[in-house]
């Protein structure tokens, strides 16, 4: 039997690291439809899974892929799909089903330029709002944004852990630049990994209510074939899982589904800061754009400009309070992202009335450090 966790240091690309992250996390089911720039994840999984006993299937489309992922999740497996923006567009209805029925799963979006077919081989950060607001109805979502090949691995593991802990789909928002980037990846020893598994029911089947949650707001999850004989539906449902169209049930269910994530914003939030203690200009960035921002902030400091970087490692749930606090002593905030204005709206809302300067970037290449440095310099002047 081959090793599940390929401990050691290698020079690999981001999609490869993501696939290995999934395998390390214990992913047992992967379904996807080929799409640039995420296909290499499926290729790596297809190579590795048969040896490990994982189930890989290439579906007829992304809708089928995500529907089967939810079926596998309810069958007791950790399950994942990977795609790009157009694929997520097709998946959204069923991602909503995963939210509603509380199916832990991971959805990797290796973002490319949009809208529509856009720039298939080129990176972008244009799907940040799609994963937050693309589904109909009220939802909260969890999304992580890796900035390196190493984080493609680390955050894929983390995405599985969060999905299992909160019984919800979790997005890994990467982009073509990182997916296709070759860098050093260090995979830890298996015993060094922290893995989370969903909470299982402790009550006997006759007393089990599939959608009754304790104060954690996350109900224990039985799997098909365990003898619990539960029923689950995308319709508004009561604690038994039965359809119930009453106002009270809708109110209670939607609040719980959202609150189980909202109330844990502080726990879920992951950020990295660079020289923010005394900063007058706070730069906010994530993913590949944050690498240029880090260089720009260091260059600014060399020139005596008091700049700092807040790198958002998790994007959703959005850490409003943290942003507000971080921006408290700053003169202004700069947001650099590879789109025409998405997460900047959240930042503006959180730091109001602090002035926010937005640096958009469209078309493959991230901002250069020089561009961000120039923006810092202008605010300081």
């Amino acid at each position, binding site marked *: 039997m081959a090793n599940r966790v390929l401990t050691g240091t290698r020079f690999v690309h981001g999609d490869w690291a993501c696939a290995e992250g999934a395998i390390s996390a214990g992913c047992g089911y992967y379904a996807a439809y080929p799409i640039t720039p995420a296909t290499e994840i499926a290729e790596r999984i297809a190579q590795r899974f048969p040896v490990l006993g994982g189930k890989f299937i290439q*579906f007829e489309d992304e809708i089928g892929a995500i*529907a089967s992922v939810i079926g596998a999740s309810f069958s007791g497996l950790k399950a994942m799909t990977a795609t790009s923006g157009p694929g997520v567009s097709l998946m959204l209805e*069923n991602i909503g089903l995963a939210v509603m029925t509380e199916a832990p799963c991971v959805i990797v979006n290796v973002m490319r330029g949009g809208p529509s077919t856009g720039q298939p081989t080129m990176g972008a950060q244009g799907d940040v709002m799609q994963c937050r607001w693309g589904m109909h109805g009220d939802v909260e979502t969890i999304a992580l944004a890796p900035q390196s090949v190493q984080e493609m691995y680390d955050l894929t593991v983390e995405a599985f852990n969060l999905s299992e802990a909160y019984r919800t789909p979790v997005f890994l928002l990467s982009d073509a630049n990182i997916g296709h980037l070759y860098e050093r990846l260090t995979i830890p020893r298996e015993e060094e990994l922290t893995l989370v598994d969903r909470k299982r029911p402790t009550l006997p089947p006759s007393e089990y209510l599939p959608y009754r949650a304790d104060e954690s707001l996350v109900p224990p999850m039985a799997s098909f*074939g365990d003898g619990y004989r539960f*029923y689950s*539906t995308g319709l508004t449902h009561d604690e038994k899982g039965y359809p119930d169209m009453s106002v009270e049930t809708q109110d209670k269910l939607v609040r719980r589904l959202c609150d189980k994530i909202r109330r844990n914003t502080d726990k879920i939030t992951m950020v990295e800061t660079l020289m923010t203690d005394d900063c007058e200009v706070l730069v906010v960035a994530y993913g590949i754009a944050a690498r240029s921002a880090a260089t720009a902030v260091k260059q600014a400091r060399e020139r005596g400009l008091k700049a700092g970087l807040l790198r958002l490692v998790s994007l959703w749930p959005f850490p409003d309070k943290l942003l507000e606090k971080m921006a408290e002593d700053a003169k202004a905030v700069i947001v650099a992202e590879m789109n025409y204005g998405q997460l900047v709206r959240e930042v503006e809302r959180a730091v109001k009335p602090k002035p926010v300067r937005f640096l958009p970037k469209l078309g493959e290449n991230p901002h250069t450090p020089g561009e961000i440095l120039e923006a810092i310099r202008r605010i300081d002047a």
Partner: protein
Amino acid sequence: MTEEMKHPLSDYLRMDRLPHIWCAGCGLGIILHSYVEAIQELSMDLDKIVTVSGIGCAGRASGYVNTDAFHTTHGRALPFATGISISRPDLKTVVISGDGDLFAIGGNHLIHAARRNVDMLVICSNNFNYGMTGAQYGPTTPLNTRTPTSPYGSIENPFNLVALVASSGATMVSRWTVYHVYHLKNAIKKGLQKKGFSFIEVISPCTTGFGRLNKQTPIEMMRQLRDNTKIMKVHPMEATIDPSTEIIIGDFVDVRKPTYGEILRELEAKAR
């Protein structure tokens, strides 16, 4: 409730969900009854069956069965069931859904699940229209039928479901009606025991929709299923269907081919 008053199938149904939502004269109750009776007669372990459905009137069937059950999004019962079938080959995966769910919005998944020969039983209630939304025309509606979205008569050619599924690779293909309860139950029993993609089309009257709009009473619709059907052992391509004149019914295909799961397990053994 005393022991004598207990319905013989009450252990197989979620009694706290009954009565069901279906209209008087609708065939879905007969399909549900045939399904659970087949399970009972085979003495199958209810813990080892998963019933999956899509959206629509037939989509509600999964909610009444006392097995693990899931009500998916519209058209996606088959990929959801594929996820189960591959993950848990020890369970019997059954899909109960309607013609619109399985052949219009979910049509692509159907041909691919059949092509892959995923081990599952699909029971498709065909009522020739979209019942739940108010009897609009669908992929099985006969040509020239008046419906709310085809007020001058439908101008589309309907699918022949058994021919389509058989040509896509299904290893068991049957067509029965809710009038032919004995044959229907036997076909379901066979499908529950079959390894591979098994498909049973069940012609079922939509009395409130199709019937009312085409001036047919529930009794007339049931009579039609008796009088206009002909049991034949033919190639599925020859199993023609025209509800107003003749519907060929029967068991058309029953062959054994390696299932997707079986081939996958072979591949895993080789890869190791």
